């Protein structure tokens, strides 16, 4: 009984922890201990985590440097937002459809852009994706000339706020599960091989172009999915929410979380958002101007002290598939 029970509890640890966390938040919200403001912050953190997991696949696992992730997040937000606003009107089925459409549009754009561009290496790829981000931002600013409902540079309103905590949390858990599985499949191993040595990977029978494109498309689709949630969580979608600085946000989360660690990405996304909000309350109104300064100082200090990320590429053992546990450098080791 002992050993079997341990295996069972281990396997059940992640779903149990997720359920417990969900219930805890609901109870805290119902009792008013967690007010609407902090619930908004929590949802923001989870949405950031989903998009950052996408970048984690692209950069953390497959090693393809992207400085334009926010563009795909924005494509998802506008696509899902427009569908929700035009046809959805709060209907859950339409909401799910709009999320899938947002992810699909972002993923498709990633394939079209990625096929030629993913031949570029490291910093050159970074600068090309940065350029793509700026191009998409300009197109968003002017999108009302083609689709008036987007509002162009004045922003888009009118998307129904369907995405409550249950939706956001459920999507996050699902995404973590899917990413976990992918990373420990032949796809994940091929991505890591490409990251570690693209030439050797090619010489060892790995079709590097194909795996890079798949990683890029999937990662950007996750950004699109997160964007769809964002558009249905916040009533106002504006191009400036998807600029270069937003791409930097995703990058910071992935790097501070430790490259090649999806646990690190999720934990850092939540921790980073909460840190910034705590900073806001600690500094108070009088020192609000100092918030950006503090943010910048914390960022630089953390990266100098922990250049390989806060968790140093480790994974939470309960998130690993059975055969990987105990063998990997997990947190318990």
């Amino acid at each position: 009984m002992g050993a079997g029970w341990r295996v069972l509890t281990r396997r059940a640890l992640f779903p149990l922890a997720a359920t417990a966390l969900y219930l805890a938040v609901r109870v805290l919200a119902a009792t008013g201990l967690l007010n609407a403001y902090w619930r908004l912050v929590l949802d923001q953190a989870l949405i950031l985590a989903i998009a950052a997991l996408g970048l984690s696949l692209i950069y953390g696992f497959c090693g393809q440097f992207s400085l334009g992730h926010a563009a795909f997040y924005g494509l998802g937000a506008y696509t899902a937002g427009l569908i929700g606003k035009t046809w959805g009107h709060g209907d859950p089925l339409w909401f799910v459809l709009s999320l899938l459409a947002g992810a699909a549009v972002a993923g498709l754009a990633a394939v079209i852009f990625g096929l030629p561009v993913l031949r570029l290496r490291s910093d050159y790829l970074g600068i090309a994706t940065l350029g793509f981000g700026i191009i998409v931002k300009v197109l968003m600013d002017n999108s009302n000339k083609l689709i008036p409902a987007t509002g162009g540079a004045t922003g888009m309103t009118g998307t129904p706020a369907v995405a409550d905590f249950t939706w956001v949390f459920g999507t996050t858990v699902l995404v973590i599960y899917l990413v976990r599985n992918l990373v420990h499949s032949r796809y994940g191993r091929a991505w890591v091989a490409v990251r570690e040595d693209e030439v050797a990977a090619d010489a060892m029978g790995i079709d590097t172009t194909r795996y890079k494109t798949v990683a890029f498309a999937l990662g950007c689709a996750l950004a699109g999915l997160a964007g769809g949630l964002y558009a249905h969580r916040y009533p106002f979608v504006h191009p400036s929410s998807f600029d270069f600085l937003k791409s930097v946000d995703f990058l910071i989360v992935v790097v501070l979380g430790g490259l090649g660690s999806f646990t690190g990405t999720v934990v850092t996304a939540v921790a980073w958002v909460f840190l910034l909000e705590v900073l806001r309350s600690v500094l108070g109104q009088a020192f609000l101007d100092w918030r950006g300064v503090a943010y910048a100082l914390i960022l630089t200090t953390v990266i100098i002290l922990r250049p390989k990320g806060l968790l140093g590429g480790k994974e939470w053992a309960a998130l690993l598939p059975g055969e990987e546990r105990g063998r990997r450098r997990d947190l318990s080791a």
Partner: protein
Amino acid sequence: MAGVLEQILNGLQLGFVYALIALGYTMVYGIIRLINFAHGDIFMVGAFVGVLGYTVWGLPFPVAVGVAMLVCAVLGVIIERLAYRPLRYAPRIAALISAIGVSLFLEYFCSLNFVFGPNYRVVPRPFEVTSFSVAGVTASNIMVVVTVVVIALLGALQYLLFRTRTGKAMRAVSQDHDAARLMGINVDSVISTTFAVGSALAAAGGVLYAVAYRQIWPFLGIMPGLKAFTAAVLGGIGIVPGAVLGALIMGQVDVLSAAYVSSQFRDAIGFSILILVLLVRPTGLLGSRQPEKV
């Protein structure tokens, strides 16, 4: 026709300013393989210090430019010392994140009320602006000042890089840190010098930009910084003449697309050209196409 020529002259002026920023990007990249995201903000600090110099402090314009260059040279050296040197042997991405942190720090710190404040400021001109025409094409003395200053600085840089021991050491370090160290070169001090020179050039670019376009604020450096970096990549990053070539192209693209296509699509056009060039020549226009060693 004269209108087109005037636009080309405007593009040249902007391209010259971009060149001064792009040089710092390309030199720093050449020597430590870092995209120094804080470089655009050093340009901004240079603009503020220079303008304060000839307005509030009452310095003559050339002296104000010199002071801005000096202040930024010191600032560049301090930044490298504090934020990049501890990460020299860390994964490259760590230094990049640190650079982003420094960039944000400079922007937000300068936005504080007791520093420069968060708002746009209109810049008074340091000298009377006069226009003149040659063969129907109108130009201003500002254009002449920008051209003269930039060409003088490019000449000085060329001299430094190819006629002095310091320049030789810089070129050696950019090829191979370890070999340079074995040859008795103090790599740390060469890197510091590179930051000083690059930052000083950006500061001069900042003052000229302020005088020419007359509006400054703490977030001034972001777009010109990105454009100049793009220019450096376009020309072939790490290559000094490439940075100037790329900057002159970006200047023309900016001005001509704003004038003849749409100012709203200006940035999109510039970056589209960058992406297309990279697809055809992955290491930039003047970059050598060395295949990766197997």
